[in-house]
């Protein structure tokens, strides 16, 4: 399976060898002052690889914990962060030792990354300087409701994660609010006024008036005002709404704060102040006192969105509150702008629609429209009386109601709670989501959780106790098995995605899935990460799932108990939707997700890119990537390498396979009788290198024929050539009698093999790392998957991330290590140009079979 190894992959016992060699080395050569000796350098490099791996494991572990299957507390987060910090300090120190201190800036980078993480863990509102005053909805940092307020945070998620249509706009953040208070010297004044009010020295109305006056008389700071003006140029009219921190979260401030519609662009800064002032309206003050929230600082973010000149607008409740058991939702609709409905002055049409696709309309009530509100030609709104023949027309068509139902259910699936959704239909017939928040309803009854034992009596189980939870939850829908691109194209909204692999190209259907079951993969894998991002209940490593689950049949996936039921388990779905608390909203999970954002994403992909620098590192992952790349470069840097090796014997391997391999023998790796600068394969005494080479040179492995490249493969290879051509370094093997460390750059691939073949199995290991390659990422990850499949057949523990494959195996007897090094030798030859030939996912099993068949006589594993 593809799970991460539980042990660090390198248990090298090269220290004694190195120590002896070092002595010898020092006797024979006097190393130049500025350069550390190669054995030392190599030792640092090995330590660095180990730390790198540990960091990767912690990152994977944090990711896994964010899936909801684990119970963790703040101590766990604190411990993990501390451990990461120590490891990174080590790594940076290691790189600086190797590189004669060329990267001192990395320490600053580390502070830049870890200071906010620490602040985050201490639970402080992290409104550090990096947070913007004004930010576009499309760039909104999600999981930061303290910066943007709940309403805007929701909209950010809707537009960025679910890709649903949200009117364009921007948020004036809580940081801008604090800056506003600071610039206008309002903080102390507000504090004093509120204290007096709480001490009953002043009445609510008077306090409110004084507070609001202070805010309204304030001046919007220049930077903020400039940014608002710049952004409001995009449209003539704006909706300006409150998005206070805490609002739309567990507490509902619905209606307490101001919302201004049809604000002309010029008027937005004034409107902004009005919204800020509404934070201290008499009602808002009383509400916060009642909720015991005055201890916390109030903070107001303000959401500005382009106004949709709507043909109709309204609200959807994803649960029919009058009959929750009917599996229907309710659509309210009214012609024109939303004002009449929001004010409660008009009776909107009411449609009851089935929650399940294809969303049949169950009932429809159409009321006469006495008046409608529409945008006035010169700005603002105007009320008009509809023509008599229009009075009794329905506000929206059935088709629109069904579109709304589909959008509403996908919102509910994501937020895991019944939703109340404000929407607008524009003149072209496009539906826009204006807002989505948890629907407030009184708990129907405090019924206890549905007991698994009861459900098992009523429903048949298709799968149980299988797989690992990647994201916890319950989801139901028809089974949809994805085996080809066509299956992906047609993936229906709300289906259960069943797949053999957890490949990255599945990502685009994840948001549509009600649940995911994969036969392979690990909770640390790519698909798991995506599933967590979109909160889709996911089980991975469920063997034979595609055999058991029949396409088209309804199933209910309950990852909490690792069960898959036949049919829709309505009582369980109801319980999860209405009663269960969703873990995603717990503060620890939010905290972990925010933390992961500063830890896990990899931004530095291309070592040739101009931002491949300490300053360019934005996450922990970036830092270790940078350190690793630079460490390898140091090791491979030709001029310095030669300087280090001045006088050292560096052999060139003469072989029918033209690899230009240089060999440095630390002892016992080359036949003592070898003369001159060249050796043949027969003169290699190093067991691992000898074996690997045997694999590479086996008949038919190293194909010298030109390889057919199809057009798209070629185009992509052309665009990547520059990078490959400028990549520094050459192929080097560092060996002893039983040890091999091999760096190979073949064409566009980069292989690293580190292996030991000792008489004592406990000393033995193979570590294999494979990365890079021509062609686009999809093909490269296809190849990565094929490699992973092959390596898994030989019991390697394999991790794949995009096109990076890391495989390791530990503590095997010499003969077993030998078999696997032969396989690696084959693989190195085999994959040289493989990705050009792997044109579709269906090709993977065929290639796998071909490879295994060819290997069979050579490395028979049946006996192992």
């Amino acid at each position: 399976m593809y799970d991460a190894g539980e042990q660090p992959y390198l248990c090298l016992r090269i220290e004694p060898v190195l120590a002896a060699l070092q002595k010898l080395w020092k006797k024979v050569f006097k190393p130049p002052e500025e350069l550390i000796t190669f054995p030392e350098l190599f030792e640092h490099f090995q330590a660095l690889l180990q730390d790198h791996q540990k960091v990767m494991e912690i990152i994977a572990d944090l990711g896994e914990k964010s899936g909801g299957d684990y119970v963790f507390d703040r101590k766990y987060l604190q411990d993990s962060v501390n451990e990461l910090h120590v490891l990174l300090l080590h790594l940076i120190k290691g790189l600086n030792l190797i590189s004669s201190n060329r990267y001192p800036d990395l320490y600053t980078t580390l502070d830049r990354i870890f200071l906010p993480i620490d602040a985050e863990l201490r639970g402080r509102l992290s409104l550090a300087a990096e947070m913007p005053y004004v930010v576009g909805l499309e760039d909104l940092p999600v999981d930061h409701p303290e910066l943007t307020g709940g309403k805007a945070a929701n909209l950010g998620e809707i537009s960025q994660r679910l890709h649903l249509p949200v009117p364009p706009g921007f948020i004036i953040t809580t940081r801008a609010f604090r800056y506003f208070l600071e610039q206008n010297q309002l903080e102390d004044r507000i504090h004093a006024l509120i204290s007096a009010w709480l001490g009953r020295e002043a009445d609510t109305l008077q306090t409110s008036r004084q507070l609001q006056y202070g805010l309204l008389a304030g001046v919007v700071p220049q930077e903020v005002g400039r940014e608002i003006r710049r952004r409001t140029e995009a449209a003539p009219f704006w909706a300006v709404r409150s998005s206070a921190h805490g609002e739309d979260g567990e507490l509902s401030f619905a209606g307490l704060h101001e919302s201004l519609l049809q604000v002309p662009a010029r008027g937005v800064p004034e409107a902004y102040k009005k919204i800020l002032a509404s934070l201290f309206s008499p009602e808002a003050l009383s509400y916060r006192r009642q909720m015991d929230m005055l201890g916390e600082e109030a903070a107001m973010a303000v959401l500005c969105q382009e106004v949709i000149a709507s043909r109709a607008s309204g609200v959807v409740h994803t649960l029919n509150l009058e009959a929750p058991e009917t599996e229907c939702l309710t659509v309210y609709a009214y012609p024109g702008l939303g004002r009449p409905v929001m004010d409660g002055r008009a009776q909107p049409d009411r449609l009851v629609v089935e929650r399940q696709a294809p969303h049949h309309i169950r009932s429809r009530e159409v009321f006469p429209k006495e008046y409608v509100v529409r945008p006035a030609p010169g700005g603002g709104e105007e009320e008009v009386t509809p023509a008599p023949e229009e009075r009794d027309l329905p506000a929206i068509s059935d088709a629109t109601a069904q579109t709304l139902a589909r959008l509403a259910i996908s919102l509910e699936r994501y937020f895991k709670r019944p939703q109340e959704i404000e929407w607008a239909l524009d003149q072209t017939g496009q539906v826009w989501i204006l807002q989505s928040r948890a629907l407030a309803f009184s708990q129907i009854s405090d019924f206890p959780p549905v007991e698994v034992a009861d459900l098992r009596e009523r429903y048949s189980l298709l799968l149980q106790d299988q797989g690992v939870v990647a994201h916890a939850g319950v989801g139901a829908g028809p089974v949809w098995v994805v085996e080809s691109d066509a299956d992906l194209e047609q993936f229906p909204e709300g289906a259960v995605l069943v797949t053999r692999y957890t490949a990255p190209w599945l990502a685009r259907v994840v948001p549509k899935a009600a649940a995911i079951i994969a036969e392979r993969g690990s909770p640390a894998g790519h698909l798991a990460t995506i599933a967590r991002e979109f909160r889709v209940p996911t089980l991975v490593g469920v063997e034979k799932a595609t055999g058991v689950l029949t396409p088209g049949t309804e199933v209910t996936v309950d990852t909490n108990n690792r069960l898959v039921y036949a049919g829709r388990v309505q009582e369980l779905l109801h319980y999860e939707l209405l009663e269960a608390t969703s873990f995603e909203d717990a503060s620890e999970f939010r905290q972990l997700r925010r933390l992961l954002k500063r830890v896990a994403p990899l931004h530095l992909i291309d070592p040739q890119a101009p931002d491949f620098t300490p300053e360019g590192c934005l996450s922990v992952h970036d830092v270790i990537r940078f350190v690793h790349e630079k460490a390898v470069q140091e090791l491979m840097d030709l001029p310095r390498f030669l300087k280090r090796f001045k006088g050292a014997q560096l052999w060139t391997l003469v072989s029918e396979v033209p690899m230009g391999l240089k060999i440095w023998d630390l002892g016992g790796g080359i036949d003592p009788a070898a003369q001159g600068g060249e050796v043949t394969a027969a003169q290699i005494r190093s067991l691992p290198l000898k074996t690997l080479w045997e694999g590479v040179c086996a008949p038919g492995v190293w194909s010298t024929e030109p390889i057919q490249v199809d057009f798209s493969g070629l185009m992509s290879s052309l665009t990547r050539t520059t990078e490959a051509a400028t990549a520094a370094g050459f192929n080097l093997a560092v060996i002893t009698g039983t040890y091999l460390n091999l760096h190979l750059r073949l064409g566009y691939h980069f292989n690293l093999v580190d292996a030991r073949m000792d008489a004592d199995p406990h000393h033995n290991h193979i570590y294999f790392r494979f990365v890079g390659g021509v062609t686009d990422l999809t093909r490269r990850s296809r190849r990565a998957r094929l490699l992973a499949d092959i390596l898994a057949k030989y019991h390697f523990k394999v991790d794949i991330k995009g096109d990076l494959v890391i495989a390791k195996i530990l503590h095997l007897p010499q003969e077993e290590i030998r078999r696997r090094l032969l396989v690696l030798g084959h693989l190195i030859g085999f994959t040289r140009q493989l990705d050009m030939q792997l044109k579709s996912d269906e090709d993977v099993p065929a290639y796998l079979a071909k490879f295994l068949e060819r290997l069979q006589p050579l490395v028979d594993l049946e006996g192992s």
Partner: protein
Amino acid sequence: MAQNKLRVLILDDEPIVCKRLKPSLEKLGFEVDTFTRSFEAMQAVEKAAYDIIVTDLKMEGMDGMRFLQEAKKLYPETEVIVITGFATMETAKESFKKGVFDFIAKPFNLNEIQKVVQRAADKIRSAGQ
């Protein structure tokens, strides 16, 4: 499951632990009470017996080790499961010496604890027969 429900007490000063554990055990048919303060849990134990206690060790006020000792003194047949973020051999040994049923290191996965609680329940039920 026609039998009487077994009663489970959960004590952990981190509310998230209680919040997650309660429904996951209720689904298995247990009756669950949760506490974030040890003295309140103690009061509950004094009032009525619990079949199974799941407790953290490190807490303010009365720590978990003392709490489980006191509870065991009152009801020796209560099975205690310790969950802790400070898992060392020492604490594990000490817990087992105090007659703890099992010891789980935090973070743990829900399935893991469900299984341990189920085992404790099986033991209680078979003893009662």
